[in-house]
């Protein structure tokens, strides 16, 4: 009984955290048909500042870190990215009304990582006072890139099997080159900003500008990003309705399943190399999250026949809200209980 009450309280107070509240606020005004929009340019700038903040912080602290510790979590991150894509391909492509290439693209987006969900997770850990290794943000590309690369390669193979010779001519133009896809991922705006921040944190002395600008803006900018994500989630919902309903089912289950897998692997790293509980939570959140900025265009360019309504709809409308609303508090609570 008491546990139930405490769970209920957790749930209620979760909705009262500004992060989630602002996300739901965004959905609410979109549902009301509001014409309120945050301009794209502001959105891009906000994401840039958030990622720079995360990167700078990571870079500054990596200076004193024992990087050998990063090895196991990094390997697990790659593994998680790969598992998610195969799992998603397997689960989705068996369902009625889903084209193989759409299944693979959707799985790829869920294997990739969301900068906004990650930022929300970090702020949550900071707020509850759970510590984590500074280099956790460096795990981002280790999960993001393998997932996207694998999805594009699998998607291309699936398409080529099916199609004739005319298609092949067009594909020659952009043959499946793993190197090319990796490069393309790294060049995306989100990973670029994160890596730039890491390098600047590592090689320069950005403490004054970090303390005076990037860090103080973090919470406020994240609150606005949440409103944007909420508006976006609602608007994509109407697209999602036009594709097979199984996407919605997948998108609701996947974040927690993926987070759970990552939590398990993270726990192994915890006992093996002392990976911190907070680190395990963030690894789970990386896994639970699905890409919203860099992933979609990379997939679109790599798999033009995949229907973006399916993969973006699943990720933005259902995956992201679930990983923020349920994933973040759930894995944090789990870590408190388990470790």
């Amino acid at each position: 009984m008491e546990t139930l009450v405490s769970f209920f309280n957790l749930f209620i107070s979760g909705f009262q955290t500004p992060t989630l509240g602002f996300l739901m606020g965004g959905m609410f005004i979109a549902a009301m048909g509001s014409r309120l929009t945050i301009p794209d340019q502001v959105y891009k700038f906000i994401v840039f500042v958030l990622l720079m903040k995360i990167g700078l912080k990571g870079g500054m602290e990596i200076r004193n870190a024992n990087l050998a510790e990063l090895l196991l979590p990094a390997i697990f991150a790659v593994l998680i990215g790969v598992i998610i894509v195969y799992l998603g391909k397997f689960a989705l492509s068996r369902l009625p009304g889903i084209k193989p290439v759409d299944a693979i693209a959707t799985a790829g987006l869920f294997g990739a990582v969301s900068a906004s969900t990650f930022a929300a997770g970090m702020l949550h850990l900071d707020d509850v006072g759970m510590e984590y290794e500074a280099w956790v943000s460096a795990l981002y590309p280790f999960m993001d890139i393998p997932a996207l690369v694998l999805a594009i390669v699998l998607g291309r193979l699936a398409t080529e099997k099916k199609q004739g010779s005319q298609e092949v001519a067009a594909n020659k133009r952009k043959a499946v080159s793993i190197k090319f896809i990796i490069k393309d991922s790294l060049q995306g705006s989100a990973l670029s900003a994160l890596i730039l921040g890491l390098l600047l944190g590592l090689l320069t002395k950005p403490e004054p500008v970090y303390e005076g600008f990037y860090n103080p803006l973090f919470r406020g900018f994240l609150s606005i990003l949440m409103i944007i994500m909420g508006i976006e989630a609602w608007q994509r919902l109407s697209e999602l309705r036009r594709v097979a309903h199984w996407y919605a089912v997948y998108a609701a289950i996947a974040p927690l399943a993926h987070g759970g897998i990552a939590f398990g692997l993270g726990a192994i790293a915890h006992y093996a190399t002392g990976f911190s509980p907070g680190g395990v939570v963030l690894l789970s959140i990386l896994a639970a999250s699905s890409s919203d900025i860099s992933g979609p265009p990379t997939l679109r360019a790599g798999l033009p026949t995949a229907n973006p309504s399916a993969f973006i709809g699943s990720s933005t409308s259902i995956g992201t809200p679930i990983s923020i609303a349920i994933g973040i508090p759930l894995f944090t609570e789990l870590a408190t209980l388990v470790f």
Partner: protein
Amino acid sequence: MKHKATLISVLTEKVFEQDILDVLEEEGAKGYSIFEGGGNGPLHQHQSQHLSMVDEFRIVKIEVIVLNYELANRIASRLVEECFPEQPGIVSLSEVEIFRAQKF
């Protein structure tokens, strides 16, 4: 002095812009203009207009004026065959009159 020329107009998602420009360069088009916007088409039901978070999915219109009708035709055919069997977008041609033919 006025000359008849052909305007090739390509509508597609920004993410495919570079593919189009590559073909234009290969065929030796001397110039082009690009405008960003939104749109809605029969193939994919995405409403580009509102895809605010993913800038690369906005619609771009690429306009190329070429003097030679044969060249215009060849460019348009290549685009339709190579870029648009699987990607969203449309290509159209129309007649225009231009000045100073040496620029085209």
